Structure formats: C-alpha cells, structure tokens
C-alpha cells in the first residue's frame, strides 16, 4: 500500500490523477468521491458562493446526455453524484459513464457497458484511485476504466444476476481497497460487502451481513436457513474514519421483506449501521436502526461522521437520518448510542430499548386487512444524501411525513420474496435541520406540493444549503435560518445530490434533473 501511494504521488503532476490524500480533505478544487470526502458530510468549505450573494448565482453550462452508440431510449435518471478530478467530471447512469469538462460541460468520452440484465433503477457514481475509475453495473460487474480515455482495464463479477442480485452503489476507495456493495431484494438471498484490489481487481475479502451460526447474534433468527436467506444488502454510501481505520455503512431490509413469519427475531445484521476494518473485513461494532423490519426500510442512508462536542467533551460521532423516520447519533469508536429522536412522522415503534434502538410495535407489522403505517415504503428519507455543516452544527435532510397501508398478501406456510406490500399513500416533504447534540429540529422548511423529495443536500461554509423541492426548483437556503434565498426551476425533478468545487477562482454548483446536468457558477468580482 505504501508503495502504491508513493507511486501515485510521483505521478500526481500529470492530468487526471487523484492524489489519495484528497479523499480525506474537505473538497475544494476536486470532488473526488460520492460524498466529496470520507466524512459523508457533503460540506463544501468554499465561500465564494454565500448567503449574501447567492442571488447572483448564474447558469454556466448545461449537459444533456445522449446515447449515440446504443441508440436506446433514456436509460434512467442521473442519480450519481459527479466526481471531479483535475478539471474533469465523471458521472454515471446504469451501464454508462461520461467524462465531461468541469468548466464547460463539454463531453470528453462516453463508456457504454454491454449489459446482460439486472435492475436498472439507478447508479450512484464512480470511485477514483490514481488514474483509474471504478463503477458497478446492473448485471453485477465491478468495472475499472482509464480516466484518460474511458477504456476498460478489467471487470470482475461481484454478484449473481441469476439470484436477482444487481449492483448500483458507488464504490469507495480506502487505501488499496475498492469497497463495493450489492443490491437486490426480490429473492431471499444474503447481503454482503466486499473489497477488491484496485490494480488487479482480485477480491480481498467479503463480509456477509449475517452472523456466523452459533454466535449470540445468530439467535436473532429462528433458523440457520432463515438467516442464510435473510437479505441485508449494502447499496448505500460508505464513509471512513482514517484515524480509527473503520468504514461505516448501512445494511438493507431482511428477507422475506414483508411476510415475516418465517424470520421472527431482530434479524441481525440487517437494518444495521456497521463499522468494519477495511483491511481485514472484520466487524468492529453494529447498531440496529430497525430491529425486525417489515416495511422495506433499508438502513442504507449515509452514516455521516461528525467531530462534535457532547456535554463539553469532544466526541467522534456518527449520525444517520434513517428511512424509518428515526435520527440516530452514535459514538463511532464504540457504536454506543448518544441520541435517538424522530425527524419525521413515525408511528411504528413502541419506544426505545436500552441500546437506543426503536422497538417495533407488532400491531404495525403488515396485516392481512392492512395496517396504517408511517412512514411509507419510500421512507422518511432514502438514498438521496443528507449533509452536515460544522459551521452551523446542523444536519440537513430532505424528509417526508408519509403514510401508506401495509398488507400481507401471502398467508401460506412459508412466504418468500415479498409476500406483501404497501398501497396508496400520503406524503408531504420538508427540509429538516437537526441539532445533532439533541436530535431536535432546529428549523423545518416545508415544501409545497405533493410527494416526497428525491434529491440530496449540500451545505457550504458560505452559510448556504442547496436542496430541491418536489416542484423542480433547485433552491439555496440560509443554512442558519432556513430562509429560501434563490432558486432555479429546472423544469424536471432534481434527481441527485448537488456538489461544489472551485476552478480558477470560479465556484461551481452542479445538480442533475433526469438526463441533464446543470453547472451553476459564481464568478469572482
């Protein structure tokens, strides 16, 4: 690993090579990973755009994707967070990667993966190591490209489409590891996360999201067979603390998803926040956000790393605004709970256990005649990334108050797959600013219009929060007060999380709507 870093430093002067130190620094002239840095805060230290001048933010460029090489229809919206290295931006939709000029939006190259299937619901983007890119494909491959020209170096199968796995996550580079998560909850298969060698693509380790048989945690399943088919996918974004040398990620829903009678118990390690050593793949600790989940509320939302102060003492913390409506703050050294609160309506828990975990109310499990449950399946929050600003001490998340009715459809002896689902619903959206010390909502900005937001948040040292409403407005708000300051109606729903970087004194903010990327810029006075 040391050799690799030295080699990288030696070549860092050349174009489109990432200095690995950038991955752990607040992003300025790069945005080198899904969240901009290892912390998952999505906080830009740049101040050229700020609360007093954001009204002057102007449109610098528009890039609409086209697929001349395949001629196929629109392949799915841009949910990826672009990555920016040495003035070049890399972004994805399922099976496709583009490189464009980060100053102009002009296309440099486009790579199309010849797919063999899998769910094409989204791709979260690329990871960068030296001069190489990495991304996942719906048909379960981890692909490495040369950043310079988009030529494939290698690909490795990371999951099995025949078992209805697919892959959508943005990989994360940690040292000489490419950390790759997997997706898929149609059949009852086990989740895992794994690490690959960035040079050769060889697998270094795989960690299954279920306990080993015979351990105390295995008793949270009625049988080894149920546990081995118990789900817990790893499709969210991963964060990393270099000092502790731990990666943090969430695990998804247990299987069968809704008809749960064959898996009574807490179902570890599904629906957990997990701390893992990236060199060995060994688990350090876990915290379960949704014990015995029955509502598809994957706990895959970003575990955001906060270096904060609790009761006057500096603490290494981790915060998650979970899909189930609960906000958790943990000590990221030990995994012990510091704060549990709700950030949106949640009617499914009876209270909290001694570990700070919600206790599910059996009356709100899906029922044959229906149970009215909040949140709905889409959740109080979902994959769109939240943000934490160390300047305001606030955690920002686009959230929903939502209800739907949950039914058991399969009442046979051994339901499998889903065996039920939710129907209908009501949902209202708001941007929540949460005080991480207490879990209390400092301010809440309700968005007009129906439906939940499907877009991420960026906060900046300029006291600005960038977010989006459900009506196609890309909005800048005062980070301290929540007052809306500026907007651009982009004519289609905002589909990803915004990013920011500065090149030649110009600060850019980038956001996507479906098939189009918008580059906004603040030019120096």
């Amino acid at each position, binding site marked *: 690993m040391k050799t690799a870093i030295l080699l990288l430093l030696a070549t860092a002067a050349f174009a489109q090579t990432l200095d690995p130190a950038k991955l752990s620094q607040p992003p300025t002239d790069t945005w080198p990973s899904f969240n901009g840095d290892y912390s998952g805060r999505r906080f830009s230290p740049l101040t050229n755009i700020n609360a007093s001048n954001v009204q002057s933010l102007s449109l610098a460029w528009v890039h609409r994707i086209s697929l001349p090489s395949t001629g196929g*229809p*629109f*392949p799915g*919206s841009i949910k990826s967070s672009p990555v920016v290295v040495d003035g070049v931006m890399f972004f994805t939709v399922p099976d496709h990667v583009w490189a464009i000029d980060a100053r102009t939006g002009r296309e440099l190259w486009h790579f199309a993966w*010849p797919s*063999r*299937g899998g*769910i*094409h*619901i*989204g791709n979260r983007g690329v990871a960068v190591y030296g001069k190489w890119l990495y991304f996942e494909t719906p048909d379960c*491959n981890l692909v490495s490209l040369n950043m310079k020209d988009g030529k494939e170096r290698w690909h490795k*199968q990371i999951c099995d*489409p*025949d078992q209805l796995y697919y892959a959508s996550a943005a990989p994360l580079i940690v040292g000489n590891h490419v950390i790759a998560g997997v997706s898929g909850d*149609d059949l009852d298969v086990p989740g895992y996360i794994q690490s690959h060698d960035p040079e050769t693509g060889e697998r270094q*380790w795989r960690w299954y999201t279920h306990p080993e048989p015979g351990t105390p945690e295995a008793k949270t399943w009625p049988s080894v067979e149920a546990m*081995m088919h118990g789900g817990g996918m790893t499709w969210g974004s991963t964060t990393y603390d270099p000092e502790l040398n731990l990666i943090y990620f969430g695990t998804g829903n247990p299987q069968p998803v809704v008809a749960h009678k064959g898996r009574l118990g807490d179902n570890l390690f599904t629906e957990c926040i997990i701390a893992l050593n990236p060199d060995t*793949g060994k688990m350090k600790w876990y915290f379960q956000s949704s014990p015995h989940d029955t509502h598809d509320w994957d706990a895959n939302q970003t575990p955001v790393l906060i270096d904060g102060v609790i009761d006057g003492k500096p603490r290494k913390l981790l915060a998650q605004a979970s899909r189930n409506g609960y906000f958790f703050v943990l000590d990221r050294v030990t995994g012990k709970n510091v704060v549990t609160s709700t950030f949106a*309506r949640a009617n499914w828990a009876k209270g909290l256990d001694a570990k700070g975990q919600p206790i599910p109310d059996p*009356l709100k499990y899906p029922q*044959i*005649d*229906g*149970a*009215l449950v*909040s949140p*709905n399946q*889409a959740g109080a929050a979902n994959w769109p990334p939240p943000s934490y600003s160390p300047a305001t001490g606030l955690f920002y998340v686009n959230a929903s108050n*939502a209800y*739907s*009715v949950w*039914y*058991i*459809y*399969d009442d*046979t*002896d*051994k339901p*499998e*797959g*889903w*065996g039920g*689902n939710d*129907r*209908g619903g*009501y*949902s209202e*959206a708001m941007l929540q600013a949460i005080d991480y010390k207490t879990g209390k909502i400092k301010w809440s900005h309700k968005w007009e*219009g*129906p*439906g*939940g937001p499907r877009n991420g948040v960026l906060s900046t040292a300029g006291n600005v929060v960038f977010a989006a*409403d459900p009506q196609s407005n890309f*909005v800048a708000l005062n980070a301290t007060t929540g007052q*809306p300051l500026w*907007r651009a109606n982009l004519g*289609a729903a905002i*589909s990803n999380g915004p990013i920011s970087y500065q090149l030649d004194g110009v600060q850019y903010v980038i956001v996507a709507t479906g*098939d189009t990327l918008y580059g906004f810029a603040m030019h120096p006075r």
Partner: protein
Amino acid sequence: MTFPYRGLLLSSLLAATLAAQGQRGGPPRPAPRPLPDGPGKEIVQRVCGATCHGVEIVTGKGYSRDNWSNVVNGMVARGAKASSSEFGEIVEYLGKNLPPRSGTAGAGGSGFIGAGPDDAHIVDPEAAERGKSIYNAECLSCHGAAARGGKQEGTDIVRSLVVLKDRYGATIGNFLKLKKHPTTTGRPSASIEGSQVMELSHFLHLKVTDTLRSGPYSQPINVLTGDAKAGQEFFNGAGGCAKCHSVTGDLAGIGRKYEPVMIQQKFLFPKTFGFGRGARNVAPPKPVTLAVTPANGKTVSGVLVHLDDFNVSLRDAAGEYQTWTRSASLKVVKNDPYQGHIELLNKYTDKNMHDIVAYLESIK
C-alpha cells in the same frame, strides 16, 4: 471471506455454469422495449419514463388494469407529476397496452422492474402445467406443493441454485442424471429426461416466479374484518366524517360502487384514483383552491396550478390563468378540500380504519 457461505458451496456441475457466467460476451442486450403505440403514450413517456426511471422499467412489466392503478397511485404518493385526467389516461394506456403476459417469464424477465439476467428462463405455462404432474408424482411428497420445502427432509427448491442457474432443463437435467436423487415412486431420477425435464424445469421456474412481487401474491386477501356498527359510530362521532359526508347523499351506494380495498384506500387517501367495481370510470380528486390577495387588497380565487416558495399561479372561475411572484405583501391562502382526511391520518387507529371499511361496505 470472513465466513464461508454454505449455501453457495457448489457441486461441480454448477461450478461450470458459474464459471461460464463470469465470462463476458454472449449476445448483446436487446434494445429496451419502447412503449407500444396508443392514446396516452406521450403522457406515459413524459410522466413515467423521463424523471425518476426510464421507460424500460414500465415496459418490462405486465399487469391488470387494477394492478396498474395501484402502481400509479403508489407513484402519485411518491410525487409523480401529472394532472388528474392525465393519470386517468396513464392507467387506461397501461391497462390496455401492458396487460399481464401470457408467457410468464422466469426468475428474471417478469421480476419487479426487470430483475434478473436478460437470458432468464421464460416459462411456457402449458409446459409448466405438464411439469406439475411430474412434480406432484415424484417431488411433492418431500419438497411441498409450493416447492419451498416440505415437512419431510426435502429442501426449498425455489431457493436452489440448481433451479436458479437452470435454463430449459439443462442444469436440472444434469442434476437428476448425476445425483441419483430419490423420487416418490422410487423411479430412478435419471429416467426423468428429455421433454419431461424441460416440463419440470418450466414448472420449477414458475414456482420461482410465484415468489416475486409480480407473482400471484400481489393482492390483499381480505380487508373486511371490521365492525360496521363501530364504524358507523366513528363516522358520525369521533371521526367527524358526517360533517362533510352522508351515506344517503354523496356516499349513497358506496358499498356497491367500490371493492372494499378501494373503499379503504379512498377514505384514507382521497387523492387515490378510485376505480369502480367492474366499471372503468375514474373518479378524479377535487382540486386544491387558492385565494391570492395582492397589495391592492383585491382577492383572486381559483384552482391551484402552481405553488412554491417563489411563485404562485391559479386558474380563476372564468378560466383565466393568473400568476404572481410571492412576496411578503402577497397573501396566499390554500384550501385543500381533503385537509380533514390528511389530519385524520394522525388520529385513526387501525381498528377505526377496519370498522369504517365494514360500515361503508354495508352501504349498498
């Protein structure tokens, strides 16, 4: 690997299949299916195929009109943007042009949003029916009627890699040939071959399909479990429903008009598009109205067209479109006719909900 996953320890015959799968190549992915031509196609393309997901997620499915209405209502709840009449057209289009498929695809093709590989086994329902006879005769006694494992020692075949890796009997045939697998009648497993293996393969893939969200377990079983009398009390009392509704007025015959599940969805979420019992008429929700008062003090009222933090627009009684920039001096009052229903979501117990269904269902 920190833990060897026993379920994935493969026999040699499977290992070969897996190795082959690691290879890239094979036929290129067929171009995603476009939307069939028909009235409403453009609306479906715009609303369902250009923002959150591509259109292949729609064309990859086949549902009844009722199921499509459930899908569309779910998308409305998640923020899909269109007018009431457009949502009606979308449901009509989908129900007509993307009906349930006669040849149900196997582990892949018909899975929710196109799960599985492109070359997944496609089930031939007639062959599967013949395969069922073989299964019932030789396999059911151990593996159970649903092939999910039986009371005997039989394993869960739906979760078997021998089946999930199979295409048209290739892997299953090898397994039966090489494994000397026990059968109910004592017949040598290797004697199940040729067309019988193919038919058994279709049946087993059908059982896999049955576990998917697109399978037969996709409907509520029975929501009529409440107490109609208690529902009546809630309707006239604590629920406050009688303040706006009457079972001899606007709700007369409601129990004839809608299936119980639709009654449940309609009073909980009145913006749900109601599709009547066997009827095709769409009951569109009532619009939200606005009263906008500019600095001159003259209030303009009408149907909400757009409202966000920065702008507001409406269509007034004369059909004129009016639009303003929002400011401190512009007063905007919103009237959602369903506000009472929204507030009730925080109040209902599940018993209230079931009782109201029973009561309204009884209003014939």
